[in-house]
């Protein structure tokens, strides 16, 4: 993975400009702009239904915005397909864990290497020579991730049998296996107990420090958001209502109103 020193910190990695998205009559996002700089942890917060998940879905190409533009690593695209986003270095986890239920934890994380595998299937059938060397290399990378996330003991367990907290960890592992430049985390701590939350926070901070991975983090727990993030975007009813450092955002009257549910 990339070392933080490789790139100038602060350079814009992702720019979202005036993005709007609607489903039939429902306006999920209206004219939202924000950016993510290299190496930062960028929190996206807001009440339920504010459009946070929709924003991530636009960024990784699941949804195509009705209007607006997205610039990633200097290339602007009106729309992008999910596998193109993945190829470009965007990985993600899901609000409701989306794992390959039939596979073990190890195979799930291995699946994150899909795009890094180059040998054709004839080589794989033979299972020797260059294909074998490649497989060994992938396995080593995957084992590093497994050690990092402290899940060595469950690597051979089918993920369907794992408790929720560990499933979330495996899902993070799968995203890391892609060696992403931008990691989109949709409520990675939802439904976790305090201890699990602390572990997950530590992993997020560590991977940001150690590998310099830029992170977009959706999270409801304000304590976590204040501790982890460099900057915060606040959405409400699909509109951006605030953008700044955790302290700036915390003191913003609109944000306070949104969270206290003041009538509009």
């Amino acid at each position, binding site marked *: 993975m990339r070392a933080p020193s490789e790139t100038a910190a602060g350079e814009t990695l992702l720019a979202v400009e005036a993005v709007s998205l609607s489903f039939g009559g429902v306006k999920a996002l209206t004219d939202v702009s924000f950016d993510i700089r290299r190496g930062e942890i960028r929190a996206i917060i807001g009440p339920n239904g504010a459009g946070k998940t929709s924003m991530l879905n636009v960024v*990784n190409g*699941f949804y195509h915005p009705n209007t607006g533009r997205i610039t990633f690593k200097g290339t602007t695209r009106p729309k992008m*397909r*999910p*596998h193109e986003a*993945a*190829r470009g270095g965007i*990985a*993600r986890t*899901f609000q409701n864990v*989306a*794992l*390959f*239920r*039939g*596979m073990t934890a190890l195979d799930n994380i291995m*699946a*994150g290497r*899909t*795009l890094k*595998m180059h*040998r*054709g*299937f004839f080589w*794989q*059938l033979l299972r020797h020579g260059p294909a074998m060397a490649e497989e060994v290399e992938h396995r080593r990378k995957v084992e590093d991730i497994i050690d990092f996330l402290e899940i060595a003991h469950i690597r051979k367990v089918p993920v369907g049998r794992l408790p929720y907290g560990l499933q979330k960890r495996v899902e993070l592992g*799968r*995203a890391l296996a*892609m060696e992403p430049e931008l990691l989109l985390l949709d409520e990675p701590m939802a439904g976790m107990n305090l201890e699990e939350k602390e572990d997950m926070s530590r992993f997020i901070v560590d991977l940001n420090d150690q590998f310099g991975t830029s992170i977009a983090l959706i999270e409801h727990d304000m304590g976590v958001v204040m501790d982890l993030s460099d900057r915060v975007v606040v959405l409400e009813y699909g509109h951006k209502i605030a953008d700044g450092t955790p302290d700036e955002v915390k003191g913003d009257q609109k944000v306070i109103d949104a969270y206290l549910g003041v009538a509009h």
Partner: protein
Amino acid sequence: MNLLYAIFIDPFVQMGGAPDLLVQTLWEGLVAGVLYALIALGFVLIFKASGVFNFAQGIMVVFAALTLVGLHEKGVPAFLALAMTIAVMYGLAFAVERLMLRPLVNQPDIILFMATFGLTYFLIGLGELVFGGNPKVMIADALFLPKGAIEFKFAGGFVSLQKIDIAAAVIASIMVVALATFFQVTRIGRALRAVADSHKAALSVGISLEQIWVIVWFAAGVVALTTGIMWGARSEVSFSLQIVSLKALPVLILGGFTSIPGAIVGGLIIGIGEKIGEFYWGPLLGSGIESWLAYFIALVFLLFRPQGLFGEKIIERI
């Protein structure tokens, strides 16, 4: 009392009394079973990759066979016609992905199912338009498929194996093993299993659904062609061939819609069960038996194993 005897005792007495006939029946069941397995595999691959129940699988058998014979009639040499038909099936897979699956992505499964109805009638129309609607004869000779039969003595009688049946069993077995291996071992196989488990997770790690869809529809097309050649050589090439695919449904009920081993073992059970049932119980139950026996076998089986052959035990969450 007599009826009970006729149902539960007499057929087994007959089996024991004439082992040569039993072996003959088992053989015919085996041949049918391998072909059922092959066609069920076509269904399973498409269902795994896209959750679509492909109603058009049966007509793809006819369409492929018709294209092959039709091209030959128009003067194309047999093996060139074969290669061209494979290319046509690839073109079909590509077109289905572009024109049908991609625009309908994220639509409810029932919509996609209906779309395969549309595809069925489109293929019927296209086949008739280009090659005419008359039954044709499979170009078995030109493809060097064997003719005649091998007979051998067995337990005081004769067992006769049609050479075309032997060829069908061998070729279909090879295809079944090749496809199962391909989708079990290779990178594409891994991707297919990932897609089957979760579309959005598969997309997020960079698997291209479009590519997988083209591959599985092409595999289903080649399966259809093989079945069309073999089944066509045993009867004739006409639209009635599509009923073979109706036999795939009980196979799928038995084996599960997403299980490759299920399709194989299910195919063999249905094929053999059907021929045995027809031969030994047919006279008793009437000649219509072959149209419902396969379903009957599948349903009886489900009573005892509701999760299907290879499904995990279903544990109801309360």
